[in-house]
């Protein structure tokens, strides 16, 4: 897929805001991830050329850190905490419930690009365990039974519904 010049110049702007510094590789990738929701292959190649960092190193960094993704992701990102506190209080069952309900596995995205499902290790909200976060919206003390209702609310009201 050929990307328009516009897309390239967007990435250029990001790279230039870090003065084309090699050491800014992670920061640059973080910004690209933030604007596209993932790291498109063409953008990685472009970063490699502009920063003069070999593609293998760019790919190495992109695949090493959990913050980066190489495939497009859904509109709503569901993060289920599998940190110790959440796990002990049953978060693995919550994840299984979500997998059943959405028909995808951990790390995957629904075909309509509505939801991406990702397990994480601790969101720092352990007192509310088990925790599930959709975008910025927290669902505390989750159970598999609450999964269906929670998804429905996100579908209808989006991520920013206020109680």
């Amino acid at each position: 897929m050929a990307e328009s010049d516009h897309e390239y110049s967007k990435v250029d702007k990001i790279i230039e805001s870090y003065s084309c510094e090699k050491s800014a590789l992670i920061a640059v990738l973080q910004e690209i991830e933030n604007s596209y929701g993932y790291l498109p292959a063409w953008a990685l190649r472009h970063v490699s050329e502009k920063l003069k960092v070999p593609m293998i190193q760019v790919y190495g960094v992109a695949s090493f850190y959990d913050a980066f993704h190489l495939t497009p992701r859904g509109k709503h990102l569901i993060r289920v905490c599998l940190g110790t506190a959440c796990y002990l209080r049953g978060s693995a069952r919550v994840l299984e419930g979500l997998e059943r309900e959405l028909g995808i596995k951990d790390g995957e995205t629904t075909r309509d690009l509505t939801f991406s499902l990702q397990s994480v290790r601790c969101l720092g909200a352990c007192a509310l365990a088990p925790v599930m976060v959709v975008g910025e919206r927290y669902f505390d003390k989750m159970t598999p039974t609450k999964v269906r209702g929670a998804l429905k609310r996100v579908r209808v009201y989006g991520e920013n519904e206020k109680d």
Partner: protein
Amino acid sequence: MKKIRTPQGLEALQNSLLQRRDSNKSCVRVCIGTGCRARGSVVVAEAFRNEIKKQNLEIPIDTKQTGCHGFCESGPVIVIGPREIFYQRVKLRDVPEIVSKTLLNGEIIDRLLYVDPTTGQKVLYEHEVPFYEKQRRQILANNGRIDPTDILDYIAVGGYQALAKAITTMSCDEIIGTVEKSGLRGLGGAGFPTGRKWRVCHKVPGDVKFVIGNGDEGDPGAFSDRSLMEANPHSILEGMIIGAYAIGANQGYLYVRAEYPLALKHLQIAIDQAREYGFLGSKIFSSGFDFDIKIIQGGGAFVCGESSALVASIEGKVGEPRAKYIHTVERGLWNEPTNLNNVKTWASVPLIINNGADWYAKIGTEKSKGTAIFSLVGKVNNTGLVEVPMGTQLKEIIYDIGGGILEGKKFKAVQTGGPSGGCIPEELLDLSVDFERLTEAGSMMGSGGMIVMDEDTCMVDVARYFLDFLQYESCGKCVPCREGIKRMLEIVTNIAAGRGKKEDMDLLQELAETIKDFSLCGLGKTAPNTVLSTLRYFREEYETHVRDKKCPAGICKDLIEYFILEDKCTGCGACLKLCPQQAIDAYGLTHTIDPAKCIKCGICRDACSFEAIMVK
């Protein structure tokens, strides 16, 4: 001209702030830390501001947003000054009532008070809540008192005075000497003496040196660093500036994990404000000392909490650790001398400079000084942040502060030190918690996770859980760690699935010891701890899994079966409707589960109000 150039200038500013602040004035402090925020505290804070405007009050009332109190269990929490009334689980609809009753008429709203679960008594003040009463809050002292986004709040409570004192009255040598004498040890994991580390870094020749604050907090189940960064970011900055001055560094970095957006935000605001007031930048307190701090957002890899991997990550590389014989203090970031400390360690420094080394050295045990902060979580009644003097007994933390085990269940073990730590059994509940005692017990201090497990926790499953975490997080550079942890996971998974063999336990033991001895970095060296400690204290449980193919705690899916107690089941149909597998039949008066269809998701048991569904 906001820049503060002299200690007198700072003191004058503090005095004018204190004078301007009427201590008898009503003030609502709403916590907007991650926990309370998750329960809607931002909306509550906004509602207070609107309500106070709307009711057109004659007396002025302040509202303030504070960081995490560490008692997230009861969020959203608010404190109403000057009487310091403590309300918890405050909802949007409570706001008008709080304004008209408590703020205007001093009336207490009973239902919002905290109820002590052991005595059933209502508690009016935050400091009387048993959870706080037994703590000694030093590092966390100002959490929940100050607005983390306002530097003046920090200055009003004496902030940056340690920095003024250090720069204008102490030599580098004196500062390092004070930290050495205080006995402060790193609170990020290994407990290395902080003063000694500073001394080495100070002595290494070099014009360019760096200091780094480690806020990566990779331990899943710990959130004390998060709470501190969110609630009192300036205390960390102040410590780092003092340290940089003593060591001779002009640039600092704060490495913070991306999962903590609020901490990142508050730290950035704090850095900007510190620059405005001249605490960062050039010629700090009119000395010849220049210093600045930059925030680096972590990429989400546990191993990046390790010092050399963290340094690689700041340099924009894959976060792989290197062999320990090259010391970071000598050759760290960009091969320059680098001093790395945990954010809690940095925040302890101003306290020591202000109060003196002797004051600090009096707290704690012989070899472990000061306080320890734990994130008390898991199957315990009060979850939250606990700061206690080193040497406090485990049972005091779990029972007196934590209020005992959830739902009156039986205590089984407590896990400290995160994935690098181990599980401590009931026999050792009177252990005095400090660096040495925890290590002797086969665990470690780590970065302060304390996870309580009850009788419904399977220790084989816990071992499997941590191994799974570690094999995923292993960076793959050295073989013992990369391959060894995988093999241990394989064996433990087999045991949990009922495929274990008698000789597996010995094999595990042998593997564990090899990995411990031959791994490159701390991740691998400590990875076998959970296996070793569970084998040491809970061998029985492994044996039951292997010999009887049973999971006594009812956790390991392959070894359990769900069934319905006929005499308790009322045939209400609640489970039937929710079962995703249609595995529940209702032919008779009561229900039965078809084991062939059941996937052991446990939804039926959650749904049953009559405790009729059991696991065997």
